[in-house]
């Protein structure tokens, strides 16, 4: 305790400060830095607080205290001499180490350089150390005079402990090698198993893919190798129709992708929703009939062949719609309109109904079902129109092939124009023809019935369309080679339609003079519609002073003209020939005057017989000309309208005139 007692007065002082009193700027910074690291912030460091800290003995490490205590006890203060000696010693020691390091490094360098200098290419004095150059090379040590070789230790006898160590090491290596080999074998087995599994999967996948390919091919779809040999898409299927127009032909091909499990994935082109075109019949804005294809079941569960077939069908329907929408541009004059992607076609008014009936044709997804609650009374018509249009496009396809296989015309500067296929035009022509011929024939039949009931001999033969009538014969003796019967059959519809009706003129006796009405329908040049050509016998025309051939474009005109002709025939030829001497023709009308044989001579009573054929009715009017005869029977009328009548025209006129 005495030591501690003696230390009581010792104060700690800093290392003697440099001589100069004022700190340089750098020293000041150092001090500040020291302070901040030791005490945190500068703000709390005041002289007072430092004093308090010292007094409290805070922040002094224990060892430092002891060191201070012991050091202070042993060497009170090292003398300057000792300090210098210590520094010198340290310096010397350091130099010694450095020398050693340099020497060893140079030796190593020299050794390597000397070894390397065996090779003349690496023989350079600069690679040796300075010392060796001076002391060795210049003294005559030749290059390449030092060699290194591997030593054979075969007969080297090792010390037992070394042997033991080596043995142990070897054993350990063997064990380690065994372990690692086992591990790698393990992983190899894993890999092989994995590969086998994968191979098995691949084989299963390929088998499945090929099985499906074969089944697609067996169904008759042409399979084709893809040009770019993509890995999962080796094949494609061509399902488009071979003679479709270019755009649709290009769409008619789809690659058959391979799925993960090998089944064929549908290509996007195949997976498109199949479309169909739809014909609706609207009457006064109300839909009364819709065409429809059978709706297929859920798309996802279909086998591949089925979806290929659906895609093919859809392609045909789309092409049909496309061609028709192009065709509408030419047919505006015929009442065909294209509005909101719907083709509006005026439908015929069959049976004289006054409803405005229209066909609406559009293209819809095939799955769309017809909303219920619609009137289905004209589904048959819509369905037939749709089927007819499909047939026409199919016919156009085979005609394209036929035209393509004919000898091409020699090349000229003018490009050959490709007319769009007549689809709507054919439809329109059929409608118009049936409408025109139908109403005309209905009228002619009424007239014929009326005239027959009036005792006039009339026969009527009608043909709706001449080439349809003799279709079988024309097909049988056809000379066109390379066209199937179906195409020849459909080819009939591409030609102008010819209807023909022959009506024998009314006569008392069986002599036959007949007039012919030929109806020709072309949507295009030269008639642009229906034309009725009326041909009359020359005897009639010469008698009445008429033209032998007349052309009409409207059925109403034909009707009224035939009415007029029949009137004239009956009045001017039949009645006139019957009462040949007594007939006086005053006007060029439907009126003839017959001078009756009076019972008394001198009093000549004459009657005007007026004949009128109108709307299938025959009306005969007799009017007394002589006013002095009295008006008791001034006008008598008899009408035939087709019902069975006992009395004939001849008898009626006779009864009046006699």
């Amino acid at each position, binding site marked *: 305790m005495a030591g501690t007692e003696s230390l009581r007065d010792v104060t700690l002082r800093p290392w003697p400060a440099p001589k100069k009193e004022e700190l340089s700027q750098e020293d000041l910074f150092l001090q500040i830095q020291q302070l901040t690291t030791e005490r945190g912030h500068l703000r709390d460091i005041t002289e007072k607080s430092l004093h308090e800290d010292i007094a409290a003995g805070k922040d002094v490490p224990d060892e430092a205290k002891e060191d201070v205590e012991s050091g202070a006890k042993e060497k009170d203060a090292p003398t300057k001499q000792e300090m210098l000696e210590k520094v010198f010693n340290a310096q010397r020691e350091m130099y010694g180490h450095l020398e050693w390091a340099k020497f060893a490094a140079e030796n190593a360098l020299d050794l390597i350089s000397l070894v390397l200098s065996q090779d003349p290419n690496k023989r350079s004095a600069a690679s040796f150390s300075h010392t060796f150059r001076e002391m060795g090379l210049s003294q005559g040590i030749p290059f390449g005079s030092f060699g290194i070789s591997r030593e054979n230790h075969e007969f080297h006898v090792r010390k037992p402990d070394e042997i033991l160590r080596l043995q142990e090491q070897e054993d350990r290596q063997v064990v380690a090698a065994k372990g690692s080999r086992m591990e790698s074998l393990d992983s190899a087995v894993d890999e092989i198993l994995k590969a086998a599994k994968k191979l098995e999967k691949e084989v299963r996948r390929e088998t499945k893919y090929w099985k499906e390919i074969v089944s697609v091919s067996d169904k008759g779809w042409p399979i084709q190798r893809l040009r770019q040999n993509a890995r999962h898409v080796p094949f494609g299927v061509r399902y488009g129709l071979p003679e479709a127009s270019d755009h649709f032909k290009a769409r008619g091909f789809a690659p058959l992708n391979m799925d993960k499990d090998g089944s064929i994935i549908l290509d996007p082109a195949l997976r498109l929703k199949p479309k169909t075109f739809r014909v609706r019949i609207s009457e006064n804005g109300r839909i009364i009939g819709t065409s429809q294809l059978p709706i297929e079941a859920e798309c996802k569960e279909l086998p591949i062949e089925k979806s290929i077939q659906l895609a093919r069908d859809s392609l045909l329907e789309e092409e049909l719609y496309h061609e028709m929408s192009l065709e509408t541009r030419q047919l505006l004059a015929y009442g065909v309109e294209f509005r909101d992607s719907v083709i509006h076609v005026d439908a015929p008014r069959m049976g004289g109904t006054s409803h405005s009936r229209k066909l609406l044709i559009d293209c819809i997804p095939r799955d769309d079902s017809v909303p219920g609650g619609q009137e289905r009374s004209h589904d048959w018509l819509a369905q037939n129109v749709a089927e007819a249009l499909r047939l026409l496009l199919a016919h156009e396809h085979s005609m394209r092939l036929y035209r393509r*296989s*004919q*000898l*091409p*015309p*020699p*090349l*000229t*500067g003018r490009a050959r124009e490709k007319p769009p296929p007549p689809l709507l035009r054919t439809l329109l022509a059929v409608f118009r023809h049936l409408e025109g011929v139908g109403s005309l024939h209905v009228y002619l039949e009424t007239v014929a019935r009326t005239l027959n009931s009036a005792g006039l001999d009339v026969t009527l033969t009608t043909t709706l369309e001449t080439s349809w009538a003799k279709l079988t014969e024309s097909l049988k003796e056809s*000379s066109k080679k390379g066209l199937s019967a179906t195409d020849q059959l459909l080819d009939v519809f591409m030609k102008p339609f010819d209807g023909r009706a022959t009506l024998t003129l009314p006569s008392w006796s069986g002599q036959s003079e007949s007039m012919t009405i030929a109806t020709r329908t072309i949507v295009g040049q030269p008639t642009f519609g229906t034309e009725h050509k009326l041909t009359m016998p020359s005897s009639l025309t010469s008698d009445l002073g008429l033209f032998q051939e007349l052309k009409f474009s409207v059925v109403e005109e034909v009707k009224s003209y035939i009415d007029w002709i029949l009137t004239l025939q009956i009045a001017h030829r039949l009645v006139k020939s019957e009462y040949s001497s007594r007939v006086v023709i005053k006007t060029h009308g439907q009126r003839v005057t017959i001078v009756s044989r009076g019972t008394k001579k001198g009093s000549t009573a004459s009657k005007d017989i007026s004949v009128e054929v109108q709307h299938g009715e025959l009306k005969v009017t007799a009017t007394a000309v002589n006013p002095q005869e009295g008006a008791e029977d001034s006008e008598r009328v008899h009408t035939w309208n087709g019902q069975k009548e006992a009395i004939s025209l001849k008898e009626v006129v006779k009864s009046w005139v006699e």
Partner: protein
Amino acid sequence: MHELLLYGQVPAGRHDQVLKILAGVAAMQPHRIVERRIIYKPQREPEEPGSNLRRGGTQAVAVKQTKQTAAPALHYTKLVQRLSEEEFGIDAGLPHENTKSLSADVHDGQEPVWSMLFEDVPDTGDRGVSIRFTNTTDLLSGDPHAFMMASGPNSFVTEYYVEGHRYVHGNVVIYLHRVLHEPGVRNLQEAPKVTPPSFSSLELLDPSGAYIFEAKVRVNEFNNSTVLESGVSELKKFQKEMKGCVELALPDRLSLDTRVKYKPPHAPAANTQARPR
């Protein structure tokens, strides 16, 4: 009308294969064609080459010679009869049938059966394809042989048959055919047979049975260079397409010569020597 032509040869063994390849290329089925061709020779003797230059010497010294035109050459012409296999006779056929004569009558709307074919020598120009002028006149009525004998006047030379298949690929008409002839009777004949002999009795002209591959583009506006170029390029494109299947080549121009050769008359030698050259 001008024809642009390229020819190739197909050995008999490859015929079926080429037929199938062509069906794929042209995307159509082959069209079977059997034809009879009858060759006529003009009766007038051709003039000696260069004789027109010597003719009509003038005494006017200063008159410049007008443009020297070549002597109009005389050409062999052909009659072509389109046949079907049923039209061939049963047996070999008699060489002369005086009772019947050929008839080219066809009904309205039918394809003409007989036509007269004139083919010029191919042009000398080199465009990579053979170009020649041709003219086809369809005969619609009458006796074609009598017509040919009277017009010209011509004399009958020989007749032969061509059978093959035709394809149309764009504007290229592909005609794969071979020539048949009736053996033996050629020298005796003086007129074409009215009914052809049976098809089986005909023999191949080339006994190896090789087929001639003819690719033809017909050009109407020969003077329009763009039209001609498009025709030539289409034919060459086809030639390239067929490379490796059938090698199409430009035929030797003179092998397609249809001109009647000038033969010097059998005059005594003294006569020719007397003519000053």
